[in-house]
């Protein structure tokens, strides 16, 4: 039997529904809730059931025709992984070095990953943009952007 996209999808959601149903049973109930027609568990339980039924239906009716298999060739997963890692790094950088520097690093990193290598372009497309956004946020819109924790530790918060 060929494993096709519908099988993977159906199986994923079946497992998800089972796990969801298990945790739905763990939701604490209030005293007296057993006599109530509607509790915090009602909808989650119904959804777990519904999810289970639908995913089994998808598994049963899965399209096994040609082109239904999962094809991963031709996709650039490593670049996407690097970009998402850059996003996570941006979140960490925001806490440590503040909005302005984090933005510049994020943009230069993004341009670099996507193939831009000219130093001038890297700088021109990031520094003025980041400074501009930072100025609009802090000066024009009066939004407080916390300086990075690193600066607080060096210069005292």
């Amino acid at each position, binding site marked *: 039997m060929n494993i096709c996209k519908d099988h993977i999808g159906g199986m994923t*959601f079946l497992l998800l529904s089972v796990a969801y149903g298990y945790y739905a049973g763990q939701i604490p109930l209030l005293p007296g809730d057993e006599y109530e027609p509607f509790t915090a568990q009602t909808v989650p339980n119904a959804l777990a059931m519904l999810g289970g039924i639908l995913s089994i239906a998808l598994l049963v009716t899965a399209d096994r025709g040609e082109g239904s298999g999962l094809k991963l060739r031709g996709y650039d997963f490593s*670049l996407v992984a690097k970009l998402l890692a850059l996003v*996570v790094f941006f979140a960490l950088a925001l806490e440590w070095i503040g909005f302005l520097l984090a933005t510049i690093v994020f943009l230069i990193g993004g341009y670099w990953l996507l193939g831009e290598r000219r130093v001038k372009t890297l700088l021109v497309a990031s520094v003025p*943009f980041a400074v501009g956004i930072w100025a609009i946020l802090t000066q024009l819109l009066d939004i407080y952007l916390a300086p990075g924790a690193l600066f607080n530790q060096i210069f005292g918060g």
Partner: protein
Amino acid sequence: MWDGIFTGLSTAVMPFNLLMVVVGCFAGTFIGMLPGLGPISAVALMIPITYGLDPSSGIILMAGVYYGAVFGGSTSSILINAPGCASTVVTSFDGYPLAQQKQAGKALALAAYSSFTGGTIGAIILLFAAPALASVSLSFQSSDYFGLMILGLTAVAAFSGKGQVLKALIMTVFGLMIATVGTDLSSGTPRFTFGNIDLIDGISFLLLAMATFALTEVVMTVLKGQHKEEEEEMDMNSLGSMKLSRDEVKHVAPTIGRSSVFGFLVGVLPGAGATIASFMAYGLERNLASAKEKLKFGKGALRGLAAPESANNAASTGSFVPLLTLGIPGSGTTAIMLGALIAYGIQPGPRLFIDNPDVFWSVIISMYFGNLVLLILNLPLIPYISRLLVIPRPILIPLILFFSITGVYLVSFNTFDIHMMAIITVIAIFLKLLEFPMAPMLLGFILGGIMETNLSRALVISDGSLAFLWERPLTLSIVTVAVLVLCAPPLLELRNKHRAAKGEATDRGPEAAINEGEG
């Protein structure tokens, strides 16, 4: 009603709101022209900006972006045969051949006129239909609302195209599941938070919308390697004349009229939206054409361009009817607007018409302004706006990523949200590779909370019995329609298979081509 219209008019003509329409249309046109980014992504990118505005200005901006994006999508369909979104795929059938015949200017102008007429007719019908529906829906009870939400959710799944119904339903349930994360509003108990403080408030709608539409769409273009493709050169000097002759106008006028009304009606159906309207209008027009004209379709027929363009704009307007009167979004884009309205503390639905007439009417009136702006300002400026597309992709993509991430961060100031976005993007890419549609999930997520509240009310009133589903005639009829909508596509498919087995030719029309109902 006239009081309301005047209130709306006075809100809509405030200089700031007019500015919002213009800015929205321009921003929307630009984003809509970028291949891969459609109206949903464009509207999602605007949410953080609208948080700082008052509700009417915010919604006006979003509505402007919506039209702009649909218009921008048609522009790239015509000029470079790269539809920005699903609802303008049909536009390229006849629009691109026209551009190849050095009649790009004419095609763009016709697209703009058809969109304008479609939008205008849509806005006029909306003007009368919405208040009428709103006053009827005042008598709705929680059981009816619960029925309507079920109808909305099943309709989205049912219209999602051949072979996609089950997947769309699963995604709807997935969206409903995500909506249960966080503190339960009725009992105050935390659900599915796993002891994480950041999840106590649940997952924010903005975060989910940005991660699944803005971030994922951009990352998908990188995944497919589209960022390396050079943008096809557009020669702006050979656009040709933008004028239509009198004969041509006479030729397409009935088509535009028909398709506008038709598109509006399709748009009103919850879940149908602009994509399906444009495909169906094109099919309808081809069926109505004479045998000789039929041959021209697909090779640059003016009618084939006018029909989907007027239909998709009228449908965009039509999808505001269920949103504004019942609080049930008709498409992915209006689902995002619903989320934004709820964030403002405004609950769209029958009460909106009474409680916030300024929002209700100014949206309707600014829709008309939006159409005017597109026609008067955007059309002549198209050659200049499309120059912006020359910005190289390696520069553009990180900027869009930056805007989507900071859009979420600047609302919550919590870096946990950024990590969450990255995780959701990974999940969304996995699901997209498996061909699961995203719009039903967002719809399920947004309607989940309201649905649970209404279900709990209905169940408490009927003392735990499910009899409320059939005791009230109104609820019963809504639920029956929902069941019919859900059962019709699989039954039709079975019948077609049966016929095909008998050797009969089956022509399912262009609707069968719709695999992405995310309009």
